[in-house]
């Protein structure tokens, strides 16, 4: 997990806002930016993965 020295997960502001809006838990997201920083693309990828998973559960 990419963690800064203050102990926080490294995540871009856009990724943070996107995650909050679409309801993705950042601690489950793997970052692809420099030093594993989480960027929006990673959040969107995590969402589409979890939404296909949840669809499977529902159906």
């Amino acid at each position, binding site marked *: 997990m990419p963690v800064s020295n*203050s102990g926080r997960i*490294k995540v871009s502001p856009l990724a943070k806002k996107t995650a909050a809006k679409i309801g993705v838990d950042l601690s489950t997201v793997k970052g692809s930016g420099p030093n594993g920083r989480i960027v929006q693309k990673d959040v969107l990828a995590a969402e589409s993965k979890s939404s296909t998973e949840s669809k499977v559960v529902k159906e």
Partner: protein
Amino acid sequence: MSDKIKVVVIGGGPGGYVAAIRASQLGGDVTLVEKEYLGGTCLNVGCIPTKALLHSAEIYEEAVEGAKYGIFANDIKIDFTKVQERKKLVTKQLVSGVKGLLAANKVKVVFGEATFTGKDSIAIKTEKGTETIKADKFIVATGSIPAKPPIPGIESTKCIDSTGALELQEVPKTMIIVGGGVIGVEIATLYSTLGCKITIIEMLDEILPMMDGELTKSIRSKLAKKGVEINTGAKVMSFKDNGDNVDVTVQMSDGKTKVFSGDKALISIGRRTNTQTIGLDKAGIVNDRGRITVNNKMETNVPGIYAIGDCVGQIMLAHIASTQGEVAAENALGHCNVFDSKTNPSCVYTKPEFASVGLTEEEAKIKGIDYIVGKFPLAANGRAMIMGEDGMIKIIAGKEYKEILGAHILGPRATDLIQELALAIQMEATIDEVIATIHAHPTVAEAIKEAALSVDKRAIHIPNK
């Protein structure tokens, strides 16, 4: 009557007028009280006039050095009256701009001197008499004034403060500057460029004590090359006006006494909060010898009363006053914001410019932080070379994660370049993000990437040691 929150802002400097505009944007019914001039110290006798005069000095210097670039001229002359007129033009235009902005944002402006009469009311002494007004919230932004130490002889008219130095009608032949802080060094730059022989007397071991020590040494030697004599560890004992000159008796670092003589002596040893006559006691506002005590929401001990800018006596800079003004206004209008100085840039308008953000090496050492330094000399930067300038960019990064802790730039455009690194600190960026950002060629900013690379000992444009 309106059901808007009624806000009174006391003082129309960069703290007060910004707070007033922001409070009005957020729906407040805002009155700004100003006793002297809109724009405060900053626009009238501070930042703007200094930089306007310095710009003329720079134009002069470039004309004189034009031959280096193939540009020749005869009889290059400074018309100091015109220089002062141009300064006035700029400050006037900006002050009238502030007036227009306040009007556009529906802030009522009252010209007069405000004093607290209680926790929820002030008296305003105007030309027409005294009026008392009540408000839900007060934002105190009364700023600061030059400190005048009790040194014998200081009452001589040849002892001037920064306001006096910016109003001179001719360039003095010699000037003794007491205090080598930002203001002292900027005025030394100004008048030495215009031909005045300057002597700086500084009590501490170094001028510009808050800046990076290594770069300060470099600017110190650049000033020396211009003929500025700098005496550190030296203490002024007395002034004596002898008609033509003022004699300044100084105890030098070696303990010996020396007398310096100048047309003028500038006293620039600091500024003190301007809160003596505003009735802090009447409102019960806690303060430390005039410095109003606030928390990071800019709240004083009295609910509904905020204080911002120079009058809180912490970081006496215009952009800090404005930032604190935004924070106070937002909190006064029911939002929640806190002031954080971690991205605060400090700028000195020397030639070349000098700017800094975050920790210096000295501070990192004192705090016991493990750090690494990356450096890039601007002598190796194409753009700086084209401009005929040099200098240095220095980045302080944390040892383990290489997050940017501080950055120090001595070089052309430093005051604007520092902003990239302030944003980096705001975002907790490491050197990797700075390196991954493409830096345009040929710019001075390329050297920021090189300094970041140098943290990792992999700079391209200097050998890595």
